[in-house]
């Protein structure tokens, strides 16, 4: 699975979450990113049977907020995130790949997952490109995440 690079602010190790009492189960906690408070959500249950665990390999993607997104130079894309900086906790990161716009195909209709936006073919493999805006909209798809 992949996320468009411009949506990402930075990637860090998944450590030092401050747990929040009473928060939904999908919230791993809060982190302090150079003074900003960032909520970390655990996407494990949305795609797999269990939540992502903190290991040597697990990482946190901090996504830009909508304002930061608009500051990206020479932007030729159509992405929305959310009004706040939100982080997502993932098992591991693999690689950076570059994809031409025409290679982004729509997800087949029978794969009906609200977070999936595009699918890209890489040799024998298919990579799903996620839609950050949907993932980060906690109010709308909470049932999927927990």
């Amino acid at each position: 699975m992949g996320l468009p690079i411009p949506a990402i602010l930075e990637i860090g190790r998944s450590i030092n979450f401050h747990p929040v009492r009473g928060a939904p189960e999908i919230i791993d906690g809060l982190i302090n990113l150079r003074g900003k408070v960032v909520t970390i959500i655990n996407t494990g249950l949305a795609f797999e049977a269990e939540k992502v665990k903190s290991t040597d390999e697990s990482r946190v993607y901090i996504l830009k907020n909508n304002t930061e997104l608009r500051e990206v130079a020479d932007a030729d894309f159509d992405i929305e995130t959310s009004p706040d900086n939100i982080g997502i906790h993932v098992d591991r990161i693999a690689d950076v790949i570059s994809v031409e716009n025409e290679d982004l195909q729509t997800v087949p209709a029978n794969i009906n997952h609200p977070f999936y936006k595009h699918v890209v073919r890489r040799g024998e493999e298919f990579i799903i490109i996620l839609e950050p805006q949907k993932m980060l909209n906690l109010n709308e798809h909470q049932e999927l995440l927990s």
Partner: protein
Amino acid sequence: MSDTQDIKFNIYNPVITYEHRAAFDLIVSHLQEIFPICNQGKCKALEVSDDPQKQKQINDLMEKVEFFSNSLITITKVFFDQLYRAKQTSSQSISQSTAMIKIDMIERNLLERTCDVRWWALEKAFWQCIILADENPEEVARISKTASRKATKSSSVNSELKNAVQLACTRLEDIRNSYTLYRDLVIVTLDGTVIANSNEERRSTVLGMNVSEEEWFKKALQTKDGTEYFVQDISRSKLEDVESLIYSTALRAGGDEQGEVIGAMGVLFDFQGESQIILNDYLPGDNDSATLDGWFSFFTNDQGRVICSSDEYFIPSGKAADIPRRHWKLDNPGDVLVSTAIVCGNRSLVVSHKSEGFDEYRGLGWTSHLVLPESAMFERSEENEDYGISPQELMNSRLIPDTNKQTYQEIQRNKGDIQLISINGIILATDLGKAGTSFIPIFDQITTTGNSTTGKMEELLSEMSSDMLQQNLKALENFSKQAIDLIDRNLFERAADVRWWSTDHAFWEALQNNKDENFEEASKRLGIINASYTMYRDLVIADSNGRIVANSKSENRDKLKRMNVSEQSWFRQGMQISRSVQFGVQDVCNSDLENEETSLIYCGGILEDGQREGKVLGVLGIFFDWENLAGPILEGCLPRIKNEVVEGGAAFYMNGEREIIASTDSDHFAIGQEVNIPIENLKLEDGESASGIFTDKGRKFIIGSSKTQGYREYTGLGWTAHVVRPID
């Protein structure tokens, strides 16, 4: 991470292999290439963006990359040091245990010898011969002359004395035939004249010889009672042309342990032959099974002089060895000394271990030395068998020292950090739009270099861990070989015992006369034997019908007398015997003769008139207390780290049916149990060893196994010894 100052094996050390130097060069040069790339990145940042915050962010990233490159360069230097240290430590500990195994092996053998001489000195034929000689001193001189012409019947020598001498010689020959470890055995009168010996070839030279000046003789006469003996360390004796190791004790009137001293008995142990077997063991050989150059094994006595050597050309006996002076003789029992030095032109590892003795037996203060070329410690093992264990699993196993594990983790972490920096760099570059694209190749290069260098290090670490696995497997093989060799040697002794005892006159007389008082006499004699040797539960005599007619322990007598053993394997084997050099053995089983789960019974044929060859009258059966012997031997063969047994380490013997017959760990490897060990470790040829990995009750073990190769006339019972240690 240890300081670079403490590096023992830096890359310029001659022991570092060519491949490792090449790997070091590759890693370091790749890491050095990162610095100009980072510099280029910093320049680019100024070029493409006017935003000071963006510039700083890129600058920070580049500095982080530089930091991790530097850290990886440091790790690389320490890394090879750790790699070589780990190999050195593990080779040293293996060499140490090999040196120890060798001295143990010979010392245990010598301990058995001390029992022998004391027991034999009680033999009637010997003291009777001395008494007759004392009564006819003028005849003694003539005995030796007639001995050289042994067929001369017309001799004027007092025929009673002549017969007594002949009988004594015959009995000494019987001993030598039963215990093949002796070159000769002699009976000496009080004035020092040899009047009987066992070795017919030497008889004309030895008989009549006066040994009154020799220490072993003088000391034998000074022994206080029958429980004392003397051993003369390797030295020259008139009795032989080679250096001798002589055990001696006094002969006493009436064969009474407290009796008056009337003469002496000396037994000449074949030390050289025995040592050669032990010294040549555990030395690697080439295709023609000649020992590889630079490997030596030898013993020195308490004067630091070589007494036996695996290579008489380079390390000759009788001289001080060409090793560091402080190795010549060690001060205290159990001392170990390890050095690196030039030995016979090779840079070598020298390991010395001084004997500890056993229980009350203190030994002769000998030291065992093992010399091997230093390069052998760091050689890559050629075998690269697939044991079905992943490099990752191996790296995390207990075989790998903690420092190496930490380095592995540090490399992993650095690798992750470099990847993170690169990706974050690419994210930053993307934010700069088109201007940022020129950063992409820079970060790509950083990722590639990071991956290739850490990958190379992982490769080296996995190479090291597979070497460690090989070394550990080899060590377990050695331990298992030691375990089976020790038991073989011990069982050989039992075979020697039973053969000799079967010739005792009390036994054949009892069976021939078939009278109660003779059987009682036989039982008494068995009792004396059992009291002198601690390793038997009971000794019994069965007549030709399988009825038990005498035994050593009076408390068992009533029970045994009602039993018939004609269907039992040991008895049937015994009844097939027609020569006194033969013996039989019934493998470990549950026997109704004693209330023990594991009986091991040796048998010898009692032959008519005590002849060496003839009709069998009945069978002598000896019940060996084998668990009490096997236990300590197995304990001594357990894998150890710094003298502590490795957690979960165990050793056990299996019989030909692949059932455990003795074990150090009755919880996990219990007697009677079958264990799911690799098939290669069970299907061994005699004398062969193997190793492997197996899983038992969810735990992963490495295992070394050896099959019996027998020892001298004892051919073994198809047993295998196994030594295991868990690795997870």
